[in-house]
């Protein structure tokens, strides 16, 4: 329940300061970055995602550690399913 999913920022969504497009294992979805300090993330950065929100900024090594941990827990598929399931901002400009 409290496990967090690592992802890499592909782009900041234009016209919506709260959203970033994130790549999680090849699945691209928008996530909300409102729980990070303003201007804290840019494309290429890695973040931990929980229930549709970026919870913290991490570095690439930590992201790989986190992914390996999810795999070892047998929860990597669930994590991808979760990200795939985020439907709140399918197109740029949607509420996020």
């Amino acid at each position, binding site marked *: *329940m409290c496990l967090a999913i690592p992802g890499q920022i592909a782009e900041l969504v234009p016209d919506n300061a709260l959203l970033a497009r994130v790549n999680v294992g090849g699945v691209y979805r928008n996530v909300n970055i409102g729980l990070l300090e303003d201007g804290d993330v840019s494309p290429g950065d890695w973040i931990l995602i*929980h229930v549709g*929100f970026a919870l913290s900024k991490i570095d690439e090594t930590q992201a790989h550690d986190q992914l390996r*941990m999810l795999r070892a827990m*047998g929860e990597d598929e669930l994590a991808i399913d979760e990200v795939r399931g985020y439907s709140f901002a399918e197109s740029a400009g949607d509420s996020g």
Partner: protein
Amino acid sequence: MKYVDEYRDPKVIGGLARELARSVDPARTYRIMEVCGGHTHAIYRHGLRDVLPANIELVHGPGCPVCVLPTGRVDDGLDIAARDDVILTCFGDMMRVPGTKGTPLELKARGADIRMVYSPLDALRIAEQNPQKHVCFFAIGFETTAPSTALTILRAHALEIRNFSVFSNHVTIVPAMKAILDSPDMRIDAFVGPGHVSTVTGCRPYAFIASDYGKPVVVSGFEPADILESILMILRQLHAGESKVENQYRRIVPWEGNPPALRAMARIFELRPYFEWRGLGFISQSALALKPEVAAFDAERVFAIPGVRVTDPRGAQCGEVLKGVLKPPQCKLFGTECDPEHPIGALMVSSEGACAAHYRYAVHAQAVEA
């Protein structure tokens, strides 16, 4: 031991296991509580019990949101869902948690509009798409999840969405740890502190456990080596007669936590005077209600919910297991009337629940070996 092989470097595990074996004082026992359900799952899955010296006892803590949710609150949420004009949304973990009249999944099968979401923002989107309905989000979770609910409510407020509410069952972990320390039938020597909750709260809230109760707290990561290293750090403190808060999970957990997340929670939530936890009873200032300023989004004000206290199903000893007084297989219903396919108690539902983890990894593994 079989799951440990999946870890990146079995040598690290072996080294830590040997150091733990060297470090323990054979003349005493150690009761260490891992607070977080994610740690409970990891401990079972990786077979860490087999790696630890026999006189270290791990007690599984209350850090599993669906496990500590009392049946009465499930009933309250399902009462909201029973209204014709309501869509109830909840995380997947909630769908199989039994209330008195069934689980959310069973009520859905009987016609209630109950939908699983992966994010509270998905619930808000459903509200935007269904203006003729009221969409209620059944919010559960500790400090990892509560900031996301808070931002969703702020978003609903900004967008002036009027058909959306939150049934808040958010709880905070530190008062539960205090309740455990104050409980006369529980003797805990130290805590493995939660990982991702601490990403939000930071390490400071645990300070009083070290200073006032004299118990070490080590915030830990989730890999086998993280958990073993955290236990080793606890032993070192105990043997040195120290009690302090240490952060083994520095690579993810900042000492100060996540200030914007804490600010979002402070804007939306206030502490309830008390809240019922399954197994632990009523704990003061342990849960979050919506502030009066956002009352329009508070399902407990929008709806007249029954609010009836419900005792655990007859024979189920979830409370004793949650407090660590009983081990999962010592419950009368474990593996007979209550199993992961037909859970009677919430601890059998979530992979983070001690009973589900014990059933899946300890019982099932024995059956396969036999």
